[in-house]
């Protein structure tokens, strides 16, 4: 026999057609920075500097020990309208409503007048998409969740009174869950049948990687400051992940029996994945006086490292696959404004343009990205004693409407539109 019919067909049908998208970078490291559109690299004067500029806290040793904790709620929505040949003109579907809440926690402790040590836990990458049951793209993805937790340690050092450097290391832990439906031609009906669901997921905390970061912040005089930062790329190797297959009865017992013999339903076979995360650099210029801070920033994410995604089944080599992604590096522009209305209250506004790295061909139900425009606003409060405070941030993010242009790698063509997200959160800071 050329090859075993059903097994081979099942293998082909199983090749996961997933594409991680741009949108799984998160910039929600703190609500003060969020209110200013993330234009914070040349400002970097609260503990979320751990993300935005490792050098920033060197100038804040006078504040003593600080603890900052918070969360940002993210509520995305997006609609899809299909085109021919699949899923066809006029087909529509919408992303299920979900709310994500990546948390952040920073502890900053001065080691001397010029050196600050930071410890932090935050979420620089994350993704969540879920589509209604039975929707036409279910063979690509029904529900996907990715969360990357960054546990970082960082030292910032003021070399002189107006120039500081900083650097740190990050321990990255990934958790991933991918769900989809497995199709196979039902030979009785001669039409496509749903024969199984498959869930790929990381089993524990051992899917991890190390990364590093550096930054500088210079106070130029006249209220001007300039800052730059770099966070390294890294690869999470999923050494501890498995696939769970569950059979869907088709109503044809002997077809079901053949499917049962072809897929590893009772085994939860091991899966090995490699996921490349991009590096990230920003350079910013800010001006401030006692009342006003104006900040602008440019940067890039090195998404071209995400050229392919490997998913290996060591015990079932026939199920393994390599997916071509072909992402490009992408640019960001950020602008922020803070008005210190009183010693207690501050108001913030911001704008961010975040270019998508995703080619239209790899847009899919797993992730369909587009250029993003974000409009932000924020509010800051510091108690009269300066011992504690909070920041509230809001961002309205608009995703560019975008078509796959008939070239979807998964053969799922159409128009992703009305993509918006509301991001709202609060950070609390205590000083000791």
């Amino acid at each position: 026999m050329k090859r075993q019919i059903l097994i081979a067909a099942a293998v082909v049908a199983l090749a996961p057609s997933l594409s991680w998208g741009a949108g799984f970078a998160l910039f929600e490291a703190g609500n003060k920075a969020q209110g200013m559109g993330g234009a914070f690299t040349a400002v970097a004067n609260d503990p979320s500097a751990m993300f935005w500029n490792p050098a920033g806290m060197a100038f804040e040793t006078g504040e003593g020990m600080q603890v900052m904790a918070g969360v940002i709620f993210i509520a995305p929505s997006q609609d899809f309208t299909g085109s021919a040949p699949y899923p066809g003109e006029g087909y529509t579907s919408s992303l299920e409503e979900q709310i994500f809440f990546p948390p952040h926690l920073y502890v900053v402790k001065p080691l001397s007048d010029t050196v600050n040590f930071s410890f932090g836990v935050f979420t620089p990458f994350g993704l969540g998409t879920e589509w209604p049951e039975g929707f036409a793209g279910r063979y690509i993805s029904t529900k996907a969740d990715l969360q990357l937790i960054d546990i970082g340690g960082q030292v910032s050092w003021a070399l002189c009174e107006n120039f500081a450097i900083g650097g740190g290391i990050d321990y990255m832990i990934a958790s991933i869950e991918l769900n989809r439906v497995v199709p196979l031609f039902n030979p009785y009906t001669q039409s496509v049948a749903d024969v199984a669901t498959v869930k790929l997921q990381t089993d524990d905390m051992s899917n991890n990687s190390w990364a590093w970061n550096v930054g500088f912040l210079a106070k130029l005089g006249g209220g001007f400051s300039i800052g730059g930062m770099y966070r390294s790329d890294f690869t999470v190797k999923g050494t501890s992940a498995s696939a769970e297959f569950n059979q869907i009865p088709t109503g044809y017992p002997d077809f079901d029996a053949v499917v049962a013999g072809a897929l590893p339903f009772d085994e939860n076979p091991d899966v090995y994945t490699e996921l490349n995360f991009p590096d990230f650099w920003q350079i910013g210029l800010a001006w401030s006086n006692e009342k006003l801070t104006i900040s602008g920033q440019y940067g890039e994410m090195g998404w071209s490292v995400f050229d392919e995604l490997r998913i290996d089944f060591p015990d079932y080599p026939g199920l393994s696959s390599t997916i071509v992604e072909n992402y490009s590096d992408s640019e960001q522009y950020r602008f922020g404004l803070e008005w210190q209305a009183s010693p207690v209250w501050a108001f913030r506004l911001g704008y961010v343009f975040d270019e998508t790295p995703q080619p239209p061909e790899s847009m899919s139900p797993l992730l369909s990205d587009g250029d993003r425009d974000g409009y932000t606003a924020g509010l800051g409060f510091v108690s009269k004693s300066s011992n504690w405070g909070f920041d509230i941030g809001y961002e309205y993010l608009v995703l560019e409407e975008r078509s796959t242009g008939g070239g979807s790698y998964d053969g799922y063509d159409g128009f992703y539109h009305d993509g918006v997200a509301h991001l709202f959160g609060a950070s609390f800071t205590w000083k000791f």
Partner: protein
Amino acid sequence: MKRTLLVLCAAALLASPALAQVDFTRYVALGDSLTAGFASGSLMDYYQERSYPALIADQAGVGTFQMPLVAVPGLAPALVLESLSPLSIAQTDVAPPSDPLEYFYNVTLEAPYQNLGIPGADTTDLLATTGNIFNLIGGNYDNVMFDLILRTPQVEDPTTGQLVDYTALVSAIGQQPTFVTVWIGSNDVLGAVLAATPVDGITMTPLADFTAAYTQLIGALATSLPNAEIVVLNIFPDARWIPFTATVPTSTEIAGVGTVPFIGEDGPLGPGDYLTLPAGSMLAQGMGLPVPGSPPLPENLNPATGAPGVILRAAEIELINARLAAVNQVIAGVTGQFSNVHLLDIAPIFEALENGHYRPFGGIELTTEFLVGGIFSYDGFHPQNVGQAVVASAIIDLVNDRLGAGLPALDMYRILNEGGWQAASPFGIVCGGCDPKQAILTEQAFMQLYEVMLPELADRWQRQPPSPRQTSSVD
């Protein structure tokens, strides 16, 4: 002066051939069973209406596209899947209507059909063979497909007033189509696969004869219809990619012994040898097994009975594939001579389907695999509705990309989910409560298919019996 320039510019624009729109006002499709929409050993309205010519006519908004529609259960009654384990495929027991005018319910159409795909036809047949509907109505099925589709043996030539043979080519040209597709040549070679016996003049058309017939056919169309766009498809590039050849294993596992090859008349099957689908039922009956007393599997077409062989030895596959390549070379050469003839090379499509690289639809992968690949019907030879849609899509891409037509893509979501004829049939799913049979393809069903597909094979063999292993006669 200015005005002259404008006129010249307008004239130049009008003459510009590059972006000429394709005129789909009158579309005629010429071909064989693949064009007719023959599937699962049957010509049936459900699949005729989903044949690639019908799909293209739909997308192009062709006003009139008539076909020789056959009512359920089709001609011959369609094969259905009775059981997967054990695998059993047999003809449906749905009985044909007793009234021929109900069975062949479009035969009274007072105009030619636009789908001139004639199951069983080779290239010469399109040039020379005629039909007579009264044979069919009278119960004579000897020339059934030509009788059904061409219907009248002769017509009057309007210019000379003389009677001429009404062949598929005459019918096509007489309709003065503005768009034509031609997919012919498969039956000039693939009879060798059906009979597992490549012999020139019997199961294959000698290359010189094919070349002459093909040149005449395409030349007549191109020159008689100078204003029509003619799309020509070449033929399957590899006999090993057809489920009819690729499905049945050539060896078996015996506990304690290992892999043991099945046995043919010329000895055990070796590397590169293939068994055709009907070998499955023979194996199930105890033939070809590596045990004492088991009769060997037949190698070749039996000249006395007309029964097919079931073994394609590696050398035979090589001969057939060489002939497929030679035929495709002829097709490329002939079509290249005419500016209004456009060749669609189907090899990359079937190569991609064979290797799992064909573009997915929403994550659904189509393959050449029997039963679960989505392309081929139960006869292992002909595409079903999804396979027909793949061919139609390739033609639509060609006319859009190369001829500037703007045909919309097919709705593959609907096509992948609509199912086979039983899904639309008042008879429901045929296998409910049927008896599983110990056969891959029951012999009766296969012979029915075989007779429909290659009515002349046994006759030819009896007229000109070569020695059974005379495969070297293939040039």
